[in-house]
């Protein structure tokens, strides 16, 4: 537990010394969301119908942008190898890194998301649902993404490969996350979607860290 907390603290401290990395992902999120109306036209009803999907796709892309850095620096300078041979269980290291990744990218995305809601003229009632869905769904991006990031560690063409590996696995997050908001906007109860999103979070919190640990052992073999 102390190892978990010290790694979490270290990750956050490193990130706060390079604030640009964190901010760039957020700006990227907003830029992607702002491009859609320019592409499909400013018709308000159309934009309102698209809002949730755009917010989620922008969140997926933003997460994808930050994921290659999850293990890369520690892999390059040998820190990861030291973590592997330390008495600390590798799972604690991986979980701390996943939590740090979510705190630094997932949570800020949740906080910026209302801006996208405003841009797309989302009704006020749906804001809370969008935030709740993002709050439950974004940790899945970090969990499954960590596995993809570990699998592509030190592999050539890692960035595009990471997208090919991770995005198909994240289809359920997109479906239920955007579905919750659509349901709320058409006057239906979104709680079923949020519950399913929570169920997927539970499943991915089992398989994500397991796969990431196994992949790190393979990469550092």
């Amino acid at each position, binding site marked *: 537990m102390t190892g978990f907390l010290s790694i979490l603290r270290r990750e956050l401290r490193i990130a706060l010394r390079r604030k640009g990395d964190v901010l760039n992902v957020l700006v990227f999120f907003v830029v992607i969301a702002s491009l859609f109306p320019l592409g499909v036209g400013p018709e308000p009803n159309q934009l309102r119908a698209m809002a949730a999907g755009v917010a989620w796709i922008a969140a997926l892309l933003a997460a994808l942008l930050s994921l290659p850095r999850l293990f890369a620096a520690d892999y390059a300078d040998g820190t990861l190898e030291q973590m592997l041979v330390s008495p600390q269980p590798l799972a604690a290291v991986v979980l701390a890194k996943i939590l740090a990744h979510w705190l630094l990218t997932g949570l800020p995305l949740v906080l910026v998301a209302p801006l996208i809601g405003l841009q797309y003229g989302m009704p006020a009632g749906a804001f809370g649902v969008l935030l709740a869905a993002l709050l439950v769904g974004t940790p899945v991006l970090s969990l499954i993404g960590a596995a993809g990031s570990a699998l592509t560690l030190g592999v050539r063409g*890692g960035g595009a*490969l990471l997208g090919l590996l991770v995005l198909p696995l994240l289809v359920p997050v997109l479906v239920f996350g955007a579905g919750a908001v659509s349901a709320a906007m058409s006057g239906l109860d979104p709680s079923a979607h949020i519950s399913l999103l929570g169920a*997927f979070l539970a499943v991915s919190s089992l398989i994500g860290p397991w796969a990431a640990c*196994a992949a790190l052992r393979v*990469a550092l073999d």
Partner: protein
Amino acid sequence: MNSNLLRFAAPQAFFPIAGKLIPWFSVLAGVLALAGLYVAFFLAPTDATQGEAYRIIFIHVPAAWMSMFIYVVMAGWAGFGLAMNTRLSGMMASALAPTGAMFTFVALWTGALWGKPTWGTYWVWDARLTSELVLLFLYLGFIALKGAIPDPARADRAGAILALVGVVNVPIIYFSVQWWNTLHQGASVSLTRAPSMAAVMLLGMLLMALAAWMYSIATTLARLRKIILERERDAEWVRLQRSAA
């Protein structure tokens, strides 16, 4: 499992066996496919509602079956290799992936060709079509990951982890897409279930499915032999084989 069977887990022992099996499975695939196509084109009656266009299901349905089945078999071999550290298992998974991806593509392609005369459009965001498309992406990701890692042992283990995560996700993706589809009723066209399939149609489909099985085994074994030769090219037995040939 007895030790006699496990002996073939060594690439060197399996290589000649695979070579002997390939002609048998190829011939079976050819005979079954001819019989299946004969039933499909000459014996099966014209469908009352869909006309002649329905005959594409004799290719489409076996391809769709194989696409899903091969992914599970591939993940099984990959997981076995990861747990038991057998070299041949990883090679088997590598050999299966292109055949699985090919059948997934064929299922999508024939589905589109069938959709045009029947639904009036090549593509609808139907639950089955969408999850088949995601399955194709999973195959391509597996092949791409294996191709990107130069060390074969590392590639096998990384691919195995990905295949195992994928196989857990496939049912979740399928149900999520199905649910998403019912949510967006407007865009969907329901797959009209045939009331009861004529026995002769079912026969044709089963023959074609068996042919697809035999074809998959034959091509996988042939690809496996190539992979074994490539990876073991510095081994003594491969050199002996080369000098004998």
